[in-house]
């Protein structure tokens, strides 16, 4: 990517996030609530994409890191009375360590490809089951944050709809920006090389083990931070919903549908997937037809993956690029 196109996309990103920041002024709370979800999934997607899209490690167990972040933060606040900021940090560190361990296990024992994916599932499920049976965090009965006290939202990180919208918007921006920086650095080259062919990369001196572990750690820590905020937003934590397979699957649909290994993909994907989900849920509930939502959602993501093999964003990006170039030359 040359400098001109980089600048163009950078400009586009800034414009996009600026618009997003102004939206709460003009829209209703219910739209903001949906946008919050979109930003949250865009962020989770970005974190997952870093590991899959750029380093080629397919994880289906990212729910584990959401859950670890969520529980670490909630328990720090609820049980130990610590600041949520500290809780977020603790969660990120724990997740990074667990992520590093999983990556190390996979690497050490040469568990590759689809087997690595299944390893991530197994570890995540084991994590969920442990939490379900760990009474300190409430086990299956759940862990509930007490009602927020009247402190400053930036201290307690508890607030209303708009507050959490901005939290996740900021996370998205940081995620986007951080990923952009990372993939343009040395690391980015090495990661892509590993994604393409790990053995070939190692043969030309790429330290695959550390770099992969590092990628998983960053991805896990990012995911965990998102999970912490989600816990604060949600207030009630259950292992099954916070770290179950379902969450793991949900967060990867957006980046794949949007376009894997691209910066905008996870965001575009979230803008597609979440509203579809909301609208079909609403339709099904108001009509009282159970299952309709699932059906609509399934059909739509199936259609995208059948007809747009690379996801939504890459063909759109190509068109924009062509259009910009055409505009410049004419």
């Amino acid at each position, binding site marked *: 990517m040359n400098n001109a196109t980089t600048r163009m996309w950078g400009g586009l990103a800034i414009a996009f996030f600026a618009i997003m920041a102004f939206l709460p002024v003009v829209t209703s709370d219910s739209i903001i609530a949906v946008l919050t979800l979109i930003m949250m999934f865009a962020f989770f997607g970005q974190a997952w994409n870093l590991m899959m899209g750029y380093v080629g490690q397919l994880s289906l167990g990212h729910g584990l890191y959401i859950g670890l972040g969520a529980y670490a933060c909630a328990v720090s606040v609820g049980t130990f009375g610590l600041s949520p900021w500290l809780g977020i940090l603790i969660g990120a560190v724990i997740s990074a360590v667990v992520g590093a361990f999983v990556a190390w296990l996979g690497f050490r024992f040469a568990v590759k490809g689809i087997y690595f994916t299944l390893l991530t599932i197994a570890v995540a499920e084991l994590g969920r089951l442990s939490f379900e049976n760990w009474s300190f965090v409430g086990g299956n009965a759940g862990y509930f944050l007490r009602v927020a006290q009247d402190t400053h939202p930036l201290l307690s990180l508890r607030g209303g709809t708009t507050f959490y919208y901005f939290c996740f918007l900021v996370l998205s921006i940081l995620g986007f920006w951080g990923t952009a920086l990372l993939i343009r*650095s*040395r690391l980015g*080259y*090495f990661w*892509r*090389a590993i994604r*393409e*062919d790990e*053995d*070939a*990369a*190692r*043969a*030309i*001196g*790429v*330290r*695959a*083990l550390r770099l992969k572990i590092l990628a998983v750690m960053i991805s896990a820590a990012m995911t965990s931070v998102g999970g912490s905020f989600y816990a604060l937003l949600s207030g009630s934590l259950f292992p099954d919903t916070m770290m179950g397979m379902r969450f793991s699957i949900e967060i990867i649909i957006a980046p794949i549908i949007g376009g894997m290994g691209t910066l905008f993909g996870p965001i575009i994907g979230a803008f597609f997937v979440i509203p579809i989900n909301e609208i079909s849920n609403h339709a099904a509930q108001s009509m009282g037809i159970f299952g309709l939502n699932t059906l609509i959602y399934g059909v739509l993501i199936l259609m995208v993956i059948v007809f747009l093999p690379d996801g939504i964003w890459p063909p759109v990006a190509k068109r924009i690029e062509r259009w910009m170039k055409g505009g410049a030359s004419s």
Partner: protein
Amino acid sequence: MSQPKPLLQVQGITKRFSGLTAVSQVSFDVPEGKIMGLIGPNGAGKTTCFQMIAGAMKPTQGSVVFDGRSLDGLNPEEICELGIARTFQVVRPLQEMTVLDNAMVGALLRAPSLDEARDLAASTLDQIGLGAKKDILAMHLTLPDRKMLELAKALATQPRLLLLDEVMAGLRPTEADEVIAVLRKLNGEGLTIVLVEHVMRILMSIADHVAVLHHGELITQGTPEAVTRDPRVIESYLGKGAKHGH
């Protein structure tokens, strides 16, 4: 005759795959600044030898010494950092990266900054004639170009020893000659090379020394001329009426 000191010493390496002994007790030295050929029938264990030298496989027995340092237990990337680069018999380009980026990954091993790596990669590509194609994705290259890219990636790591596994197989004679010229030049600049080739013409024209593997064992070694006259080599590898080298 005063031999230069060996850069690479292969000491009795053996590789067994469940039941099958692919390489058995093979020892040879590669003197610094020389070009050494490794030949042998299909399945003789040539690629396996390379795999073990480059750290991609652990020898069942024996060890490899590079520049006086044992390579036991080192990873491929560590061995590469010490100065050994290799190509893969079945080419392995980084498909969805451009030719330049492929070479840059190798160059980043020693280049302190992205810009310097880019320059180094570009000059390596120019050297072997891939300069014009640097912005093409590797997956769109033709097979000979992929082989050259394989070479470029290896060279970009600025190795002292280069292991080439059939880089010229499938090239037309004129194309192969161009590669030979490049290798000669690099060798002139001090690069030590070990190469596996089935095309005797190529081997005869650049190897200083040839080792022959058969059923995983080193059956003979010596100058190219001596080796091709060896009856065991003729029987197991070259064939009687061979008039090789088109």
